[in-house]
């Protein structure tokens, strides 16, 4: 009885300590020996077949490229190597869970996933349950791209860490930008009809009402995901509604076709997007989007004066003849390596605690893994699609076009409060 109370007290104390970012106590209590050289396997669970295979294979290459870097620089400590193990979830939440069983069976303790919040929610939930039942085989989930805010709010989990900025944060930056653009008067929202698109639409309306109550929402359309071949009727509707600004969370062909239909119809409106930089989309947009497309992102290839990650990007391009654009593959592995170094262990529980509150200076700015909800805080950029030239020197997908900074927002601007009530496991096992 006394023993159980002591454990409970210890758990409560560690929660408080973790929240304040102090790790001194655990270090002092158990001076761990240096970590033995070993290979840390990371399961990559994303679509490697089907319509989204292009995105999936490109990102797997991102990760493999990044592990080489981490290993060469020994970021996680001497002799500790990262290795990516690819698994195909066919972009389906159900398939992700089947694959997770294989991951567990193979004794892999770290999982990276990003394409689709549906799959991310399923994985986060399954991992939480698995870890509760099998604390000795706990798994850490590194979400590098699924942006559903629920993952770090109502459905947050101790084992889930997000390295992309979520929908709310990106919309905060977009609307902060729109706030100072008097030419924005009539906004038309068009989104894919599933959780992500619905959230973009909802948050856009909320935040615009707060920041610019004079703006009229002249349209709010949801269309089926990946089904629309001809967007011209939507464009006609935008024109009839006198829209000057389009806000969309669309990605892949749904974004490319939308932009091209707009240009064909001579629609003179600006597009504010989340995903205009994803592989294949720049090619499809091409000249159609010149000066009409804006993007919110945590990086783009022409950030002056330092051009963060430019060398890395060029080397990746040379080697794979593909674009490098997902900085979250870098930040996630860097933060994981830092966690292992601080925990002096590769044990998922210790590493997870060590990653909480990690603050680092990386090439694109200050980042912090917020302890309360495991959301990475980082700077954001609004950029526009423009001809290559001058300081905007990095061509994208050989289109002759690239991204130019409109505004840079430091980390604090887009930070959003969280409603996460995190359940933390006991530190000692």
């Amino acid at each position, binding site marked *: 009885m006394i023993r159980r109370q002591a454990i409970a007290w210890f758990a409560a104390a560690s929660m408080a300590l973790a929240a304040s970012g102090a790790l001194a106590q655990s270090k002092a209590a158990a001076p761990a020996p240096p970590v033995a050289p070993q290979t840390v396997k990371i399961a990559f669970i994303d679509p490697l077949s089907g319509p989204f295979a292009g995105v999936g294979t490109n990102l797997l290459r991102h990760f493999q490229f990044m592990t080489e870097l981490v290993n060469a620089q020994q970021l996680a400590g001497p002799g500790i190597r990262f290795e990516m193990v690819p698994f195909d979830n066919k972009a389906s939440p159900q398939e992700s869970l089947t694959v997770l069983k294989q991951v567990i069976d193979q004794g892999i303790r770290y999982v990276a996933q990003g394409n689709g919040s549906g799959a991310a929610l399923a994985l986060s939930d399954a991992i939480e349950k698995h870890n509760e039942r099998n604390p000795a085989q706990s798994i850490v989930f590194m979400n590098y791209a699924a942006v559903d805010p629920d993952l770090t709010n109502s459905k947050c989990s101790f084992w889930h860490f997000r390295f992309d900025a979520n929908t709310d944060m990106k919309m905060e930056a977009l609307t902060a930008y729109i706030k100072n653009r008097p030419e924005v008067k009539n906004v038309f929202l068009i989104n894919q009809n599933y959780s992500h698109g619905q959230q973009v639409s909802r948050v856009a309306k909320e935040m615009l009402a707060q920041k610019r109550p004079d703006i009229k929402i002249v349209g709010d359309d949801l269309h089926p995901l990946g089904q629309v*071949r001809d967007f011209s009727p939507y464009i006609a509707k935008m024109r009839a509604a006198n829209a000057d600004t389009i806000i969309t969370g669309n990605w892949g062909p749904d974004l490319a076709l939308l932009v091209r239909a707009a240009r064909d119809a001579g629609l003179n409106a600006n597009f504010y997007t989340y995903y205009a930089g994803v592989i294949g989309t720049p090619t499809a947009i091409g000249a159609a989007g010149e000066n009409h497309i804006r993007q919110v992102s945590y990086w783009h290839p022409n950030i002056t004066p330092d051009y963060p990650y430019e060398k890395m990007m060029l080397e990746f391009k040379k080697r794979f003849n593909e674009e490098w654009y997902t900085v979250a593959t870098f930040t996630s592995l860097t933060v994981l390596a830092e966690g292992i170094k601080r925990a002096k262990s590769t044990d998922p529980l210790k590493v997870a605690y060590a990653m909480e509150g990690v603050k680092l200076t990386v090439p694109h700015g200050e980042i912090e893994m917020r302890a309360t909800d495991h959301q990475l805080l980082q700077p954001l950029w609004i950029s526009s699609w423009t001809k290559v030239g001058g300081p905007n020197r990095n061509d994208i997908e050989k289109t002759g076009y690239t991204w130019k900074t409109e505004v840079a927002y430091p980390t604090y601007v887009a930070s959003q409060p969280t409603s996460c009530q995190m359940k933390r496991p006991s530190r000692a096992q």
Partner: protein
Amino acid sequence: MYDATLSQALYGVSYGLLLFMLAAGLTLIFSMMGVLNFAHASFYMLGAYFAYQLSLWLGFWPALVAAPVLLFIIGALVERWGLRRVHKWGHVPELLFTFGLSYIIVELVQVIWGRAAVAYRVPDELDGPVAWLQQMGITFPQYRMFMMAVAIGMLASIWLVLTRTRIGLVIQAALTHPQQVEALGHNVPQVFMLVFGGGSALAGLAGVVGGNAFVTEPAMAGTVGAIVFVVIVVGGMGSLVGAFIAALLIGLLENFGKASDFTGLKLLQALGVELTPDAALYPVLKLTMSQVAPVLPYLLLVVILIVRPKGLLGTRED
């Protein structure tokens, strides 16, 4: 003045005509050979990729001719060395053969051109809006006009070939009385080969003009595959004119549907019924027309199958 309705109608018709180009080859092959070609949409995709590659080497106009010719050759080879061998086992193996073929083509395209979209662009001559429509206040791309012209030209030439030429007469005769035609000294298997090649070439032509109007990527076959079957079933299996009418109908239905904010709630309101959000069926009734528009063609398919199973202009009773 901007006339939204006229502009919507133009877009609807041009989209419908593209669907017709796709469906024409499929319905021809079906009516003449009884083969439901599942690889048809893959030939459409191949047409777009060939045109992309050839337009890099030779320019758009030679590609417009050369890509369908290549597709004709591929189609004829597939018939000669594939379908003809499977034919003797009946229709199901034929179906499975074309089904498998569609997968192989998609994979091949990904191996050769990669998984992402390729930059297949509208030629500069046809880039920009139509001037005389612009004066009327309607922005309509020249390329869509061109697309419509190609489709109508295609319909006219198929009709001429089938009814006014000797080969057309042999084809028609071979359909209903193959033994008799063979007895008269005509090479019926060769006629079938020509028909299959011709149908594939039509799909290729649709790919050449559709690939740059939309996006050329490995998923493009999948996105049109289902809708083309809707067109030929609604039009009546094997009926060219039926496919034409059905394609226009579906094009207009989708276009006007997407642009409409009409909901079941508004209909009830007009009838004097007010519903609260907790009423039964409220979530269904509040869906706008634009949200359900992409489903409308399939709804039409179901209704046609119930009301008139042979399709609008179909002749088959079985």
